[in-house]
């Protein structure tokens, strides 16, 4: 069978730290390291092999990358020194850019809500973040989720570790510059993708 090398090339050149995948020797040490291992459809080792074999759709649509808990076990163990955590993160991002990642994938959705919460004022507002997370499937479901989590929320409030700040309207002083900076960074990335 002839391998389609165009997908591999795309990953090597355009996914964060993707070029490292060439160096993988398929030993499987990473595969045994993921704490949520049983929930990975394909282990990091398998993902890297599939990329080399040109299996674009299977890789990009897989939920596997979204199971990464960023524990860095793989990274300190890989005999070839691959920055696996960042490669896996890079593949998740790559799947988003290629519009193949499921919009409703729970961790992808969480990442989006967190980023928006953070960008709006420059810092995270934890109460607004969790409220938005509960409400993501509509209000009835949100109320149900809120009820399920009410003990946790109440204990956080009572211990003085959750601020009553559902709207999260505060801004860092240099917020205009902060926004301009992120806009610039996105522009540069966009330009690179197009070239």
């Amino acid at each position: 069978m002839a391998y389609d090398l165009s997908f591999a090339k795309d990953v090597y050149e355009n996914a964060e730290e993707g070029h490292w995948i060439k160096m993988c020797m398929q030993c499987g040490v990473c595969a045994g390291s993921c704490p949520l291992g049983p929930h990975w459809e394909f282990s990091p080792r398998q993902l890297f092999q599939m990329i080399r074999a040109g299996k674009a759709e299977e890789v990009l649509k897989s939920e596997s990358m979204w199971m990464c808990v960023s524990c860095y076990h793989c990274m300190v163990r890989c005999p070839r020194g691959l920055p696996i955590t960042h490669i896996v993160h890079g593949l998740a991002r790559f799947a988003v850019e290629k519009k193949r990642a499921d919009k409703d994938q729970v961790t992808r959705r969480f990442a989006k809500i967190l980023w928006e919460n953070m960008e709006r004022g420059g810092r995270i507002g934890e109460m607004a973040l969790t409220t938005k997370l509960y409400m993501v499937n509509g209000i009835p479901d949100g109320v149900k989720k809120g009820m399920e989590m009410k003990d946790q929320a109440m204990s956080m409030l009572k211990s003085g570790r959750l601020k009553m700040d559902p709207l999260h309207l505060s801004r860092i002083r240099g917020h205009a510059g902060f926004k301009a900076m992120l806009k610039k960074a996105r522009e540069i990335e966009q330009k690179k993708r197009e070239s």
Partner: protein
Amino acid sequence: MTKTYTFYPGCSSEKKASAANLDISVQSMCHILDIRLNEIKDWNCCSASIGYAEGGELPRLALSARNLGLAQKQSHRKDVVATCAACWLALRETNDRLNEDAEIKAEMDEVLQAAHLTYDGSLRPRHLVEVLIEDIGWDTLKEKVKKPLTGLKIAGYVGCQTNRPFGVCGDSFENPTYLDKMIEICGATPVAFDKKVACCGGALAFSELEKVCGLIKDILQSAKDSGADLIVTPCPVCQLNVEVYQDKVNQMFGTRFKIPVVYYSQLFVAAWGGSWKQAALHQQIVPANVLKRFVR
């Protein structure tokens, strides 16, 4: 003599945020050690270990680059100290990338310009634990002990990001010893704890709580099996996940865990004769009552 450092607290250490107990106990600890932490003015969030998905590479790295740029502008000091594992990791990763990758560095110069900042890559992001060990030293940490926590059995839970990928003071990734040493210095007994470097699920507690509760259960079970009275950790994500979801774990698995989870900073403040409030022990969710007999 006062030792002064530039300080990046991060979102969870803000007033009344989820790691308020870390921040308060860190401030008390630093007060006792005569360390001054100068907060970077107008810092922003680092997007922790989940920023990659929505932010991508350059915008994500820009977050920490801005903080480093601010630190450089506001002080001549080279060290930037973080207390949150994810914040420290983000600062270090960004700093390394800027130093190793000329293309990213050039792009970042342009990006930072939009915020009227520059950053040359010369600062040194450090974890507060490194400052304690390298700059203060074990002997001083030990000399401060007034109320040795004799008889307490403690599981030292190092977790992930305070340990990997960078490590603390060259300690082992698979079996780091510094936290056990801290426990010992406080007069308590570190137990053999086989989930010492296991993952609590990190940010995925927000999206995959059921899967993550499995990890938390294993950590609690291991602590219990080892006979620990409490768990101590340097990481705000570990502390939060393992403490706040104990009820969920108990519901899911029919267990009956009720194990306090405190920060190393709370432990030090307690052993150094600080008050319950100075150690922020009133802000625990699972009350750390086992410490009551030592702390005023």
